[in-house]
């Protein structure tokens, strides 16, 4: 709370509304709004028959199944392990904790193409881990499992980074109260600590999921790219562009755009929920 100055509450005392809003809107308009509108317009130009044909084709449906399905699994995987990592980083002290904390953002900072070739090198049948897995009959690279590995990599920081601040600000007194009342540690964690963290975990999950469905660079090297089996939606869009099938590409891209928008709204709502939990 700032003490002091006698604040005469005049809303318009701060200048620059017109300029800042103007800059913001023109920039957004030129770079984001107009291009995306053109996309939607071109898609609708294709006509209902083509739109239906495109969206109902087996190949498109399979690609959506692959992209959304595997992104969901990867995000779930990251929710579990991300939670553990966040817990360990916040609650425990151990050698190298700060260093490891800094490294969590690596998947975020590393270019996707680098992640792609690196992961492929690890999980290919003659690769660093792939060789061992192959003797056990498990093929990772060039199968949907490879896509899962890649999406799990790029989504790793999201849950950790959404849970950490909530966990850090967590009021330990409730835990102490629970302990005083005789609850076991497991019950305390399950019923006192975990519930307020759920919004944060879900926010992280949704962020990882949204990232996963659109991911391109890290996936195309390690995926088999086989239609109907290991072909992701962004790759399908690129293939259609290379065939200059603009109607097909725009229709599929528009559907992805709508999905991204919906996920964004979900994320905003979840973040608001998280803030309410923290404040409340």
């Amino acid at each position: 709370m700032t003490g002091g100055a006698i604040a005469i509450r005049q809303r318009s005392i701060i200048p620059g509304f017109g300029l800042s809003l103007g800059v913001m809107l023109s920039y957004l308009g030129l770079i984001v709004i107009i291009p995306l509108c053109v996309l939607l317009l071109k898609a609708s130009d294709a006509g209902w028959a083509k739109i239906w044909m495109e969206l109902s084709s087996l190949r498109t449906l399979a690609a959506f199944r692959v992209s959304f399905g595997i992104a969901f699994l990867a995000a779930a995987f990251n929710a579990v392990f991300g939670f553990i990592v966040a817990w360990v980083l916040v609650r425990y002290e151990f050698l190298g904790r700060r260093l490891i904390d800094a490294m969590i953002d690596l998947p975020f900072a590393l270019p996707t193409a680098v992640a792609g070739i690196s992961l492929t090198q690890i999980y290919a049948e003659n690769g660093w881990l792939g060789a061992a897995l192959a003797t056990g009959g498990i093929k990772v690279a060039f199968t949907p499992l490879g896509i899962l590995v890649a999406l799990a990599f790029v989504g790793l920081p999201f849950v950790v980074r959404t849970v950490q601040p909530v966990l850090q600000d967590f009021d330990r007194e409730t835990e102490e109260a629970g302990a005083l009342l005789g609850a076991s540690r497991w019950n305390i964690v399950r019923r006192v600590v975990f519930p307020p963290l759920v919004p944060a975990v879900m926010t992280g999950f949704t962020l990882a999921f949204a990232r996963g469905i659109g991911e391109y660079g890290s996936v195309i090297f390690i995926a088999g790219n086989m239609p109907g089996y290991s072909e992701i939606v962004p790759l399908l869009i690129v293939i259609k562009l290379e065939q200059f099938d603009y109607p097909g590409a725009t229709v599929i891209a528009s559907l992805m755009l709508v999905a991204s928008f919906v996920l964004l709204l979900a994320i905003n709502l979840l973040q608001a929920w998280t803030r309410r939990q923290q404040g409340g």
Partner: protein
Amino acid sequence: MVDHASSTLTASLQGSARRPLPLTESAGTRTALIAIALGFLLLSLLLPLIVVFAEALRLGFGSYWAAIGEPEALAAVRLTMLTALTVVPLNAIFGVAAAWAITKFQFAGKNLLITLVDLPFSVSPVIGGMVFVLLFGLQGVFGPWLAAHDIKIIFAIPGVIIATLFVTLPFVARELIPLMQKQGTEYEEAALMLGANGWQTLFRVTLPNIKWGLLYGLLLCNGRAIGEFGAVAVVSGHIVGLTTTMPLYIEVLYNDFNFAAAFAVASLLTLIAFATLILRAILEWRADWQLARSRLH
């Protein structure tokens, strides 16, 4: 009062209890969780890093330097740097303007605007490149006009820059908006009442206050600009030595079976990623310190 009472109670209970209160997990559980977390992180983070450098040096140091010194590799580095140097300042200006508009004023539709700013972040980068092909490609909306005036955007460097501009647009704004929201308008109002004009307020009051958040945003924006792949792949035309950024050049090398060379270029990008992480940690440390200091006032 309540705090004092309960902690005294806790202390006395602990002193006289036959077993300690479960305020944290058992040592066994703790060790197990740490082991799981570290094992997981080792596998998912450390291993890829090791692999990049190991593969880059597979054919020896001489090969490594040769790969990086190739004119096409240097051209890729130049293009990547040019893109970052263009895109980051532009998005910084946008970020400050957007944060100013949203956090210093009240008006309807803020949520919609914030969603629009976030949109490039959640949309697939392939779509980010594709929309500009639809706009500026010869078959696109402005195609004929651009061709008539001999302006090349798609399949040329401007296309690469615009596509990168799209995908990196949110980064600075996303850092500044919550930060400036938290800071409120008191400082600016005080400055204005003391006679400063708008620009003086911006440069002498606001910017210093958001210094660390701004630098943070610039860092993230820069990292993404350097590493962008999907959006640029769609617009570039793959002219090696001209419109291939470093990530695209990696793909070119990889697809021509030059694996060691691809990893050599990848190692450069990895080093940049490292630098980004270190700078980020430093900024976080400084920002915490800054915030702690400001609370004392």
